[in-house]
């Protein structure tokens, strides 16, 4: 084992003189009395290694001994990951004692005492390769597959497999041998370095299904594909976190992983408090049972913030290998980029734009590329869908993190300050935002099958109407209400109908916060009909009051249970207004 001695400290950058070989990204521990401070090698020059410390470096001094662990930052994967609250280094926060986080205290991520009921899926004599499903256990309601280690090279033979029974994660459940007679005992867990993608699959096709979120502005107008990537940039106060939380509650995923990366602790506490209570609409169980939270709040050490997104992604990829659909949410990737910036700065690297490291774009692209839908070696399908938020400095979407992310992600949900100011939530800008999946042939054919032949064309026509509405509004504000033809007012108000009935959605209303696919299809149909209608008004003054009435009915419908009696009442009220319009 390589050891070393501390030779310098600047904030969380420590230089260490080493007595043997070290590798880039190797984990090192600074030994400070009883405390072991975990660090990661980020540069080596001669026999000096620069390490970034995942803990506060208060009191660290020259001469302290250092131990190198011989491997990169790894996570432990196995049953028991769900319903856990981890820090960025996969320490189970619930196992830590005391109100305050104690430096150098590392807790085990899984539970060694729990007896899981194991059911074998393979039989002795089977040929086993990396990721092979050996058996499964019930983790909450999820069929958690026990898989052959992803690190396995070549073909192995399954010598023996445990019978259907209860075992702990440390018990041997299988023995495998390779052609040279090497024998390995396997347990239900394995370790994996977080910065390396798990690629134990046959193929990574283009996404071909949607990840429904319950948000009309996303599902209807800018759909996110299962296995796809999207990001939500927005100035503070525009509702990024609300959008992410709502998506996490409603999305059509099997597993939800939330990486709270350098954000507010109280927001995580909100998840801690709400998720164990919230019912999962898909299973009737609690939402918490299929959720893992990686929590590195803004006041926790900066270097671990960078690690936290990788930890989250690795856990996501692990569940993908089980043929599950995973939704990974990270709030916010800007904080991660800032952590990179702080370190690059301390390493005295030449800075790129806004003092971010030059390779920022590459790092972000690399991370987003880990998402995707995959065909596993056994023919099953799994997916990791990634939705990140970006917190652009000064709300300026031209800053480096937003620009780099835009290159990497397929969906762009731009939150607009103007919409937030006028309380038009979710403040996702209908003009700026886009989903490249709406162009993809696979997704188009999925949508045609799910929602009908004309679906995509109808969506695009409403998007176009929104644009026309915007142009009409601009003309009206330049030329004045009576300076433009009445049609301009009608165009504008039609776009207001789309906005109010389909784009705005109240995340705090128990009904409106989630729109089912059926409901979205209905909504689009009704609004499209209104927009395709010709209205004739005597003067512009009649336009606004008439459309406001329509909007009010549509809004009330959004607040009612779909197809309920009350819903139908407002629906007929809407029809009455529409019929009146015809007469006029």
């Amino acid at each position, binding site marked *: 084992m390589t050891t070393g001695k501390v030779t310098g400290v600047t904030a969380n950058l420590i230089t260490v003189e080493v007595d043997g070989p070290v590798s880039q990204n190797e984990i090192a521990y600074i030994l400070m009395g009883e405390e072991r401070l975990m660090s990661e090698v980020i540069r080596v020059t001669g026999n000096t290694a620069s390490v970034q410390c995942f803990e506060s470096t208060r009191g660290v*001094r020259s001469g302290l001994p250092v131990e190198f662990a011989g491997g990169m930052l790894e996570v432990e994967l196995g049953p028991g990951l769900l319903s856990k*609250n981890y820090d960025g280094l996969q320490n189970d926060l619930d196992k830590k004692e005391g109100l*305050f986080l104690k430096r150098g205290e590392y807790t085990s991520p899984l539970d060694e005492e729990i007896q899981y009921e194991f059911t074998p899926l393979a039989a002795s004599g089977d040929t086993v390769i990396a990721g092979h499903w050996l058996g499964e256990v019930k983790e909450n309601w999820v069929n958690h597959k026990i898989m052959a280690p992803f690190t396995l090279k070549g073909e192995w033979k399954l010598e023996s497999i445990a019978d259907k029974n209860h075992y702990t994660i440390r018990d041997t459940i299988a023995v495998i041998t390779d052609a040279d007679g090497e024998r390995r005992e396997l347990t239900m867990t394995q370790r994996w370095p977080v910065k390396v993608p798990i690629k134990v699959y046959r193929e990574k096709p283009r996404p071909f299904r949607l990840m429904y979120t319950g948000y009309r502005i996303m599902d209807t107008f800018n759909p996110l594909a299962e296995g796809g990537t999207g990001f939500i940039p927005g100035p503070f106060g525009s509702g990024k976190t609300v959008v992410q939380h709502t998506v996490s509650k409603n999305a059509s995923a099997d597993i939800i992983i939330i990486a709270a990366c350098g954000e507010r602790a109280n927001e995580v506490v909100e998840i801690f408090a709400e998720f164990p209570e919230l019912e999962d609409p898909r299973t009737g169980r609690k939402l918490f049972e299929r959720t893992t939270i990686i929590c590195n709040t803004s006041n926790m050490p*900066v270097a671990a913030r960078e690690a936290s997104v990788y930890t989250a992604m690795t856990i996501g990829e692990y569940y993908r290998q089980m043929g599950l659909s995973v939704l990974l949410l990270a709030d916010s990737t800007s904080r991660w980029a800032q952590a990179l910036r702080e370190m690059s700065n301390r390493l005295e690297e030449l800075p790129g734009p806004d003092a971010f490291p030059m390779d920022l774009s590459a790092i972000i692209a690399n991370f987003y590329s880990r998402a995707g839908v995959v065909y596993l070696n056994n023919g099953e399908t799994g997916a990791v869908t990634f939705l990140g938020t970006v917190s652009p400095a000064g709300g300026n979407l031209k800053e480096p993190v937003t620009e780099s992310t835009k290159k990497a992600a397929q969906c762009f949900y731009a939150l607009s300050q103007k919409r937030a100011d006028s309380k038009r939530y979710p403040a996702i800008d209908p003009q700026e935002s886009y989903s490249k999946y709406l162009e993809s042939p696979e997704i188009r054919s999925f949508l045609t099958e799910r929602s009908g032949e004309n679906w995509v064309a109808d969506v695009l026509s409403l998007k176009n109407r929104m644009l026309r509405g915007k142009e009409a509004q601009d003309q009206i504000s330049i030329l004045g209400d009576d300076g433009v033809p009445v049609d301009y007012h009608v165009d504008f108000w039609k776009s207001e109908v789309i906005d109010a009935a389909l784009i705005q959605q109240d995340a705090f209303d128990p009904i409106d916060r989630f729109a089912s696919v059926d409901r979205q299809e209905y909504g689009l149909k009704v609004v499209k009909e209104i927009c395709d209608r010709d209205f004739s008004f005597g003067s512009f003054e009649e336009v606004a009051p008439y459309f406001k009435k329509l909007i009010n009915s549509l809004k009330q419908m959004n607040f009612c249970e779909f197809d309920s009696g009350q819903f139908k009442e407002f629906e007929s009220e809407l029809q009455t207004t529409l019929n009146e319009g015809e007469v006029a």
Partner: protein
Amino acid sequence: MQSRAFQKIHTKVDKITKATITLKATDVGNEEMAWVDERLAQVVKINGNEVTLQIFVGTEGISTDAQVVFLGKPPTLKVSDDLAGRFFNAYGRPIDGGPEVEGEEREIGGPSVNPVRRKQPNQLIATGIAGIDLNNTLVTGQKIPFFADSDQPYNEVMAKVALKAKADKIILGGMGLSNDDYLYFKALFENAGALDKIISFINTTENPPVERLLVPDLALTAAEYFAVDKNEKVLVLLTDMTLYADALAIVSNKMDQIPSKDSMPGSLYSDLAKVYEKAVQFPAGGSITIIAVTTLSGGDITHAIPDNTGYITEGQLFLRTDTDIGKVIIDPFRSLSRLKQQVIGKKTREDHGPVMNAAVRLYADAAEAKTKRDNGFDLSEYDVRTINFARQYSESLLAIDVDLDIDAMLDVTWRLLESHFSLDEVGIKKAVSDKYWQGGE
């Protein structure tokens, strides 16, 4: 002055910059405190046996044979109930003529609370100011700054909120306070008869700017004592965090770090978060609520300081002078309390959410109508009504001199809506309007 016989005294300084000195010393820990002649200093960098110290008051007059004594510990504060009612400087030394406080010595700037040991904040803080209670309700354990231009009465509003807030302890961290403001706070607290529950850590403009860096940590260490050990509700006032960030920039500049946006250090976000994230609700009942001030330059919130602050804090209260009524109001568009959803409609009346949103939306319509008017266009009848509504709404609710309880604020809003709009235009969920709307259809 504090050196003791058994401590090693270094007397050879190798390098002196405007804010730091470097000397050879061994067995010195990062962030350790030291005396350099009569001045307090802190270790900021170790390179082999070379130690760089940041001297808070600056290095003017420091000579290469200055006496350097390391204290073997990071900065600390002695905490006990005797802190109450006292005024201290940025090192935690009394400035009110009273004796030193005895108590347990604690490191300042200590570790963060384990997120799973926090409790979700859910207790409303009533301030009587409708711009806050109605539109941006505050909750214990929240952290929120006032965003204000330097000519606005932010310290007065903050003091008013503090005194109304029914906290067990109010801890004032003053950074770069003018002497007038310091005396204002002192007199106000004395007159309110609240002095025994107030603790102040003060750095005025007469003191060197780098000293300020210790103020939030001192204030929050005292706050943690009362919130954790005594289960008290503690309100921490930090004014002005812009000057705190300026001091961070000075230090980072002197340490040759590459500046990022607006000449601020690249670590500004983390530095500010370390302070603000000390706001917490503990399960045992104690809490730390932080109300801060971030002064803006000409209302620019895209500057790195307010921008980073906005991403950290749970909203912001934006002060603006409303020229229609000639008063300072809490701007309903740019202000936000992120935790308000925890109490609105839960700890307050069920109509709170819908009526608040309706009024703000109509206020936004008024803003558009005003733009139209300013551009010389004719106003529709609706536009005129929104403008009239906006003026009354500003006057009777948004202005900072309003003092009402929350139910009264809601009633006032309903009556305003009724007198200017039809139910259709207000667009409130029928179940709610059925109960509270007293106007015509």
